[in-house]
């Protein structure tokens, strides 16, 4: 036991030293510049994978591996998220006890607006994601909120995503220092290593997309949320963005935060903003 912990501390300090040695990039003046960040982010992937069509990045692992892409296209003929889609459509049209429906809570009746979520709510001074807005709509109409990781929320977001399919992601950052802070906070979360495995989101989705981690082909970070919510064969069920963040955390042996925690809302804001212009492809099917 003694040996194991010293080994552990040893490997951790070694990792820190290694990090320090990597050519310390010029730390630009600490002014948050989302436009420049988004451009740099997209160019990184366009240069790293020159023969992947830009809009293909939203197909995650399938943009990285031909054999997997064929299996996916075969599944897309009659996709497993078909039931969630129908359930979402039905829920969307079923009025609450007070007679209202989701359509009354959203612009354009909730149809074809998914590409503007998450947005920064200047009144609240925080990022509001689609899942949060749906639960707030339920609570405003006297209904109990849904779990963020269960099927009902996935069905609703699946239907709303479907109505926006093909539309380019269109996330706006208002000229509000709190919005810039939320964007920066999301970026920090994305690059921060966590968990005993000492991985950050970037360790897998920036440094090694297309490669395998055990049996999975890693998706590129660019456009990784455009297909949400996703039906995962591994879960043999639907997964919302919240469920994906939580399972990723526990896979690096980091204790997940509560669903829709500020960090999760901000990292969704960051990842969606840098994917601006890439098409919405939700709901998606994944391994």
């Amino acid at each position, binding site marked *: 036991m003694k040996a194991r912990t010293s080994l552990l501390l040893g490997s951790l300090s070694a990792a820190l030293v290694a990090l320090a040695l990597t050519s310390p990039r010029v730390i630009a003046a600490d002014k948050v510049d989302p436009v420049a960040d988004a451009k740099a982010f997209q160019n990184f992937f366009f240069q790293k994978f020159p023969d992947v069509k830009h809009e293909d990045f939203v197909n995650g692992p399938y943009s990285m591996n031909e054999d997997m892409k064929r299996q996916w296209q075969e599944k897309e003929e*009659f996709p*497993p998220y*078909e*039931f969630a889609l*129908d359930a979402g459509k039905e829920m969307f049209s079923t009025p609450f006890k007070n007679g209202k429906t989701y359509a009354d809570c959203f612009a354009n009746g909730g149809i074809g607006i998914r590409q503007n979520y998450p947005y920064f709510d200047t009144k609240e001074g925080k990022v509001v994601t689609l899942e949060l807005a749906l639960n707030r709509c339920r609570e405003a109409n006297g209904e109990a909120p849904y779990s963020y990781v269960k099927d009902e929320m996935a069905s609703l977001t699946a239907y709303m995503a479907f109505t926006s399919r093909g539309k380019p992601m269109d996330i706006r950052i208002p000229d509000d220092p709190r919005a810039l802070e939320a964007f920066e906070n999301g970026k920090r979360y994305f690059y921060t290593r966590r968990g005993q495995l000492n991985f950050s989101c970037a360790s897998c989705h920036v440094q090694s997309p297309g490669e395998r981690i055990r049996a999975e082909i890693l998706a590129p970070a660019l456009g990784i949320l455009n297909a949400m919510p996703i039906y995962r064969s591994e879960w*043999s069920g639907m997964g919302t963005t919240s469920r994906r963040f939580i399972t990723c955390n526990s896979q690096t042996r980091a204790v997940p935060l509560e669903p829709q925690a500020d960090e999760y809302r901000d990292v969704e804001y960051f990842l969606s903003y840098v994917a601006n212009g890439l098409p919405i492809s939700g709901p998606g099917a994944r391994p």
Partner: protein
Amino acid sequence: MASSIRVRATSNGDITEVQTLIQHPMDTGLVKDAKGALIPAHYIRELKFACNGRDVFVANWGTAISKDPYVKFSFKGAKKGDDLKISWSDNKGGSDETTAKIA
């Protein structure tokens, strides 16, 4: 409640292509649930497609068929507008059926 059977039947005049997706857990009986108890086997055993009064396709399934099973086949001798009757039965006596118009 909507039927558990989703079907797409399209005819190009001579051959009708049929795709079906059925909502069913297809439990193998070898899987344990969170509390460690075995989930009993629950799977569709027979799936029948009938058109114009005769069977056009019969599937006998075991426990190795995926959850929310999918099957695709084609057959001759039907035309647009004909009715295609789909019915399944599982090992727990459950069943469902639906009728679709060939598009």
